[in-house]
């Protein structure tokens, strides 16, 4: 676990561009700079094709920029070999996806424990910490259920527990309520509201304005660039817009 101070820069994009195509170059991101600090509860918002997904890939160290630098916890990720990027990703970032991406043959607790593999922890330590994380999202009693035995909302809560179990500096969520009904969406957003902490940052990538309203900082994107970056007073989630 990497510790951070309140207000410290956890992740920084400096003049980042991401270009696809060899012959015909398409700019998915163009000269984007962004700092994510401890305590941020950020929403990245924009219409389809605005570059949100590309941004998410770069923030999550899942992709490399064509130009510019991505710095995570003080390390320039562009200079790191693939294995080191994997290690950094596992140590500092927790992911929550729209489609949950749980491993179907594993029980909820084992899905959460997947994030703790290859860290020198014993099986019982992995299980204890995973149970703790599941209990924090109200799913302690469903620990031994496989994804197919859980509702969509419960699956997303398992995914959130998996993202939190490593105690990451940054939680990256991609349309976390996109596949949920309004009741489950509210439950999940309630959990996200509770994640706000001075030591970590939460970034929600969404096209839902009601989701964005729960953040204290909103970054709006259009055509591969940031058009606004404003701080706001968060409001409680009012259901999917």
């Amino acid at each position, binding site marked *: 676990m990497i510790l951070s101070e309140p207000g410290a820069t956890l992740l920084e994009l400096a003049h980042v561009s991401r270009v696809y195509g060899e012959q015909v170059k398409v700019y998915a991101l163009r000269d984007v700079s962004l700092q994510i600090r401890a305590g941020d509860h950020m929403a990245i918002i924009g219409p*389809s094709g605005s570059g*949100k*997904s590309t941004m*998410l*890939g770069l923030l*999550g160290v*899942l*992709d490399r920029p064509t130009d510019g630098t991505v710095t995570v916890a003080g390390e320039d990720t562009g200079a790191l070999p*693939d*294995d080191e990027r*994997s*290690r950094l*990703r*596992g*140590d500092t970032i927790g*992911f929550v*996806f729209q*489609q949950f*991406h*749980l*491993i*179907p*043959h*594993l029980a909820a607790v*084992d899905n959460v424990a*997947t*994030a703790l*593999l*290859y860290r*020198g*922890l*014993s*099986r019982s330590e992995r299980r204890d910490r995973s149970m703790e994380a599941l209990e924090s999202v109200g799913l302690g009693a469903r620990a031994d259920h496989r994804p197919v035995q859980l509702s969509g909302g419960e699956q997303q809560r398992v995914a959130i527990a*998996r993202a939190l179990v*490593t105690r990451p500096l940054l939680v990256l969520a*991609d*349309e976390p309520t996109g596949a949920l009904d309004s009741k489950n969406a509210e439950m999940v957003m309630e959990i996200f509201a509770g994640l706000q902490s001075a030591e970590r940052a939460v970034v929600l*990538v969404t096209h839902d304005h009601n989701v964005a309203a729960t953040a204290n900082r909103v970054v709006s994107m259009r055509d591969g660039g940031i058009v606004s970056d404003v701080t706001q007073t968060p409001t409680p989630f009012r259901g999917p817009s």
Partner: protein
Amino acid sequence: MSRFRELIGIALAGIAARKVRTLLILLGPIVGVAAMVGAVGLTESAKGDLKARLAELGTSLITVEAASSFGSQNPTLPQNAVRRVSAIGSVDSAAAVGEIRNVVTLPNEGGAEYYQAFPVPVLSTDTALPAVLQVPLRSGRWISTADQRNRTKAAVVGAGLAEQYGVLPGEIRTIRLNGEDFGVVGVLERVALDANLDNAVFVTPYAAKEYLGADSTAPTKMYVRAAEGATQEVADAIPTAVALGGSKEVTTSIPSDALEASAQADKTLQQTALFAGLLALAVGGLGIANVMSISVIQRSSEIGIRRALGSTRLLIGLQFLFEALFVGLLGGLLGAVLGVGVVYLVSAIAGWVVVIDYAKMPIWIGLAVGVAVAAGLYPSIKAARLEPLETLRLG
């Protein structure tokens, strides 16, 4: 080490999660190894009884017969042939028999017409014969020095003749040799290395000469037991030792040689079946490669999320390679068990003695593991090369 254990756990969970798929890809290694274990086991077991008997009898017995040289119709060995041969350093023991010709042998007074149709060899013998042959008596006792000294009409019959004459164990009975009643004092167990003895009657040299009118008690055949490992050397030395510069010619043979040759498994059949097993294993390997390649595509989301959670390319590749390894190991083990089962079943039906070389099992199972790992290499590399961003479908 803990990383290694974690990888094993993930691989085993992956195999256990998809039971039908796992069963399908297990078939290749199972059939391949079962075919190879079965091929070797069945071809060896078909000769298993001979092998077992050979192991029991040993390979150190030599038979010595007088050669029929020109002008000699009934060749014999020198009277003191046993003593001459015993002088050879590596000879453990020796015994001789002398065939008495033209003896009419009957189980009793009646049935002369029927039994005379089957000529029975009657042999004068010395007391050491069963010990040299390493064959026990089925019942009763062997001819003794007391029989010779007391001039008794004692006879021992071979196991085959005893069965033919209906001699019961412990029964007091006689057989008729040239019209003389001889008391049957024992029955010699079957002699695997010289089946002629199974149908023979054994009497003392005195009885041979005095009661059965033998011209001579000179031996016609000698059995020599050589020291372990010196059989051929002794067999080569015997003609000189017996002749001692005289005119007697002898032929020697090692009866276990023939048995040993016939106990050899049919190598061509074995190799053909082995080849078929290897082919099954290779086809099974293709099956593993095929199914695992599809599996990598189906499990791309799992691969993506594992990568997002910090797994390196190497760990992802190893996870799939370990799955292939366990498929090979499990398939190999099950195949070996199946192969052994088939050998036992067929041997039980055919009445064979089961011969299975368990020392070779690691080779067959190792082959299955090798093929499975080789087959899993491509899907593993494919899995390791998957980009998490491509598999997670963001946005």
